[in-house]
């Protein structure tokens, strides 16, 4: 199997081609200009993760949406499920930046935290 991707570790944006050997599954990366590109490609093939910033409903504050984010990157394939989970939760003002609004999101061990403070009105 072969996959094409663009390395985003630095602004060079090298175009990488990753091939996995059919029998052993060993990954081979070409097109990278440095070691970091190889590590990135292998991570993307074996365990891709992303930060998830979004908003959730907040009650009792000036604004109706509270910006939140995962404290750490979560597995990429869980993104849509995580969005659903975050949509189901409603928080009450006041909130302080960094407050945990959902702990252990979908069993990943990663918390969802508030991106800003919001006062109660």
């Amino acid at each position: 199997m072969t996959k094409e991707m663009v390395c985003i570790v630095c602004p060079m944006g090298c175009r990488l081609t990753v091939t996995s050997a059919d029998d052993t599954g060993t990954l081979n990366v070409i097109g990278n200009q440095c070691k970091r590109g190889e590590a990135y490609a292998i991570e993307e093939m074996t365990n891709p993760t992303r930060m998830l910033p979004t908003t959730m409903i907040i009650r009792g504050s000036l604004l109706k949406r509270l910006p939140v984010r995962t404290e750490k990157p979560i597995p990429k394939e869980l993104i849509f499920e995580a969005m659903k989970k975050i949509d189901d939760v409603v928080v009450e003002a006041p909130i302080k930046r960094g407050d945990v609004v959902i702990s252990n999101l979908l069993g990943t061990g990663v918390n969802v935290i508030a991106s800003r403070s919001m006062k109660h009105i």
Partner: protein
Amino acid sequence: MTQYDIVVIGGGPAGLAAAVEAREQGAKSILVIERDRELGGILQQCIHNGFGLRVFNEELTGPEYAERFIDELEAMAIEYLLDTMVLEITQDRQIIISNSEKGIQIINAKSIVLAMGCRERTRGALAIPGYRPAGVFNAGTAQRYINVEGYMVGKRVVILGSGDIGLIMARRMTLEGAQVLAVAEIMPFSGGLTRNIVQCLDDYNIPLMLSHTITAIKGKDRVEGVVIQKVDQKMQPIPGTEIEYKCDTILLSVGLIPENELSRKAGIAIDPVTNGPVVNSNMETTIPGIFACGNVVHVHDLVDFVTEESRHAGNAAAKYVMDESRSNHKGTVIRTKAEEGVGYIVPQQIDMDSIDGKVALFMRVRNVYHNASLSVKLGGVEIKRVKHRHLAPGEMVRVDIDKQLIKETQAEMTVSVVLEEGRV
């Protein structure tokens, strides 16, 4: 009449950093004026991560980045006004403001820092034929509706323009359940960061159509579809390449323009390329005592650069207040000039008396270059050359020049792109 040492216009990251730095330098009475209901500027709607890698060594979201500076401002007890619009500023530094509570008021300032940011180019600035149905939004407006107000703007979306705001919104709309059909970009390359192309488009299999543009919008009351066409090298649509998409929403991400009505009215010289005030190495405009920083000067892609530049402006404003003779336009001034491959340089003037140690030049190149150098010349003689493996119009470049490299002369300082093999 109220009197302040420094009045900062705009409470975005530029205004906040300028105010905080001016206070650190000892300026006493400082006022920040913001027309919105809260401080933070555009950052409050940029809920995605990717801010602060340079300044805080951390990857923060827009609101997190803003709140760190708002906290500092509050801790220093710097005064600010919200829901207050600056209507006019004058050459002798009077500021006319208006808010619903107190109506129109006049404030006097020893020094003014302009930090009004920029606004989005609108559809009017583009020539797309058709009716004007509902469902056409500026990407930044849609961002505010979704992220701050909590309204979803549509279900099937086509985006025109591949600047960062368009890319970020492609992902945001997808996550919120919309279907983003395509991003059309008239240029043969994207003005957005590679990282955003990968994480906002490739991750969700959203096609990026380079050298394509929207040539017609269908629908009378609400958008019903668009026609996208390939363009030739002269950016003219090629007949026979039309593709029609059924969609209910179009987002325009076709660029930002510095917000300079106030500056123009006051008689500040504006650079026709950046659309921002002409500034010197102190971020002082052509009117003594009026400084400018952030997106009002030139559009930045990284807020970290905004913060650095604005601290510099705040510092200069504080020093000006303590000693007005520090104003420039006096000693030796060297003009900077963008040459081959370089679009513009900020500052446009280097004021030799006021630089300590080094001067930072910010610039954008015109094209994508690999393995090229930026060559800085003074009076035609190269004084510095910096190698870059990658240069792109979407990524602002900073070049620092040591003061001792700059012999006091009346000559111009130029910067050009030089390819490894020779001249561009």
